[in-house]
């Protein structure tokens, strides 16, 4: 018996655009059905932090590190908004789509590989984080923060940070066997990183070892970049920070693909 002759293209490439587009279209169409709640939580939460800390602490501490406290917190909470709109959808959204909706089974039966699936999901989350990350800044502009040209870079800073955190979330979802596992990550990893990012108080207040560790915190790099975007760049140092965020995203991306391949392909 002869086996049906195959067309010329036997092996499709990696990271093909049609595959990425297919997964992104699914996300965009789905977004049309839940954008209200998602936008609500991604914008209201950091705004509350901003107002509570900005006005609460702001009445005790008027200036910090040379900035108005409200301005200090407003630029810092961009990183909070990015974290909330990337790491959390990465963890919970991925797990739900894998385990409860079985969406990934359907997608992987189509000409889409796990690498493409993870990449498209991360790009989508990062894009949302890029937009939602700007909200605290917009709120602060309303409360008197001076606009600056550098702020136009904030969506990009939020995007590249969001990409890393989205991949981080997907990676955790890939290794998690149940929802309960996320509690460990939120308490032991995300909460400390969120607090020691220089969002609410400068790291220079901390002991030296904590400052060194803080510099390895991608959230801190995001906070610093946004502050410099608003108040003045620091040249090479800031470029190094962007490179650090890119490296964080790259490493998380590859590990997320590895984790999800293990989970989805048996």
């Amino acid at each position, binding site marked *: 018996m002869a086996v049906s002759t195959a067309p010329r293209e036997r092996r499709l490439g990696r990271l093909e655009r049609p595959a990425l587009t297919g997964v992104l279209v699914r996300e965009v169409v789905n977004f049309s059905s839940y954008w209200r709640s998602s936008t609500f939580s991604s914008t209201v939460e950091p705004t509350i932090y901003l107002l509570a800390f900005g006005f609460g602490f702001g009445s005790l501490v008027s200036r910090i590190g040379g900035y108005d406290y409200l301005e200090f917190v407003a630029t810092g909470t961009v990183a909070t908004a990015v974290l909330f709109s990337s790491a959390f959808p990465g963890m919970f959204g991925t797990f739900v789509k894998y385990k409860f909706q079985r969406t990934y089974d359907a997608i992987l039966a189509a000409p889409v590989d796990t690498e493409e699936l993870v990449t498209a999901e991360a790009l989508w989350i990062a894009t949302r984080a890029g937009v939602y990350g700007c909200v605290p800044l917009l709120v602060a502009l309303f409360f008197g923060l001076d606009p600056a040209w550098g702020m136009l870079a904030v969506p990009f800073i939020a995007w590249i940070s969001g990409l890393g955190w989205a991949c981080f979330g997907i990676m955790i979802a890939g290794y998690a066997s149940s929802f309960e596992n996320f509690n460990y990550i939120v308490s032991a990893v995300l909460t400390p990183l969120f607090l020691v990012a220089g969002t609410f108080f400068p790291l220079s207040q901390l002991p030296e070892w904590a400052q060194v560790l803080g510099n390895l915190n991608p959230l801190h790099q995001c906070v610093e970049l946004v502050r410099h975007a608003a108040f003045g760049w620091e040249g090479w140092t800031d470029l190094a920070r962007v490179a650090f965020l890119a490296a964080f995203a790259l490493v998380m991306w590859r590990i997320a693909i590895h984790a999800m391949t293990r989970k989805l*392909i048996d």
Partner: protein
Amino acid sequence: MGVELAIRLRGVVKRYGPITAVNGLDLDVPMGTCVGLLGPNGAGKSTTMRLLTAQSIADEGELEVLGFHLPEESKAARAECGVAPQLDNLDVTLTVEQNLLVFAHLYRIGRGERREAIERALVMAKLVDRRDSRVDKLSGGMRRRLLIARALVHRPRLVLLDEPTVGLDPQVRQELWALIDALRSEGATILMSTHYIEEAQRLADTVLIMSHGSAVAAGPPTELVAEHAGREALEVYGPPARLAEVEAEAGAAGLRTRRTGTSVAILGVDGANGYAVEGERRPANLEDVFVLLTGEEIV
């Protein structure tokens, strides 16, 4: 010139730890035919389906789908396959049409043909006037039709249906049979797994009976029945003691029997002249074959 094969599996083995889910499976699906994978739960049908889309990777053996070697060329094969999974994985907050639109993209249908492909799928699923309904507002039967239509949106050369009617009531099941039959008559190549005897008997040109991960018999349903169970069976009802007696008598007369819970079926009675026990004569069926070959009850 031989028959073109859509699927060719040779000696395929898939283990999960200590469990061997697929154990040396050979499977041929010629182009233009409908092959039914029949077996009880746990026979390895769903694992076989996952192997065909490279969502499971075989430990041993050769796998070819539409001429592509699996797993390394699987993506090219998947582009030309349509898969309707056993478990509904539609996007429930989207409308019928949005679900089809998403898959029109995932299956890379060009912008110019997308509209038409979606319309065709809506007609096939008989969901034209429900196009704007959210999936979570549809009945179970409608969802299953949509699940199958979604797999057909790109006119695949090969369709994989994993338990297409499991868990549906008889009326809805018949609707789906009509849909699958229409697909067959258009010349589609179909591999369908099922644990419903009647489904395999009605829809499949060839049936492959699976047990414990491998094929125990294969052929057209009527031939399998004629070969293994004869033309007619005699169904004898009675209390357990009487049934044991009937079994012993039939055994002494050189006839094969099988228990069906409340009765004993004596097989091949058409060939046994003068064998006279009170009972209901009925045509032998695939279930008889299955039980004879595997010793397992199927439904």
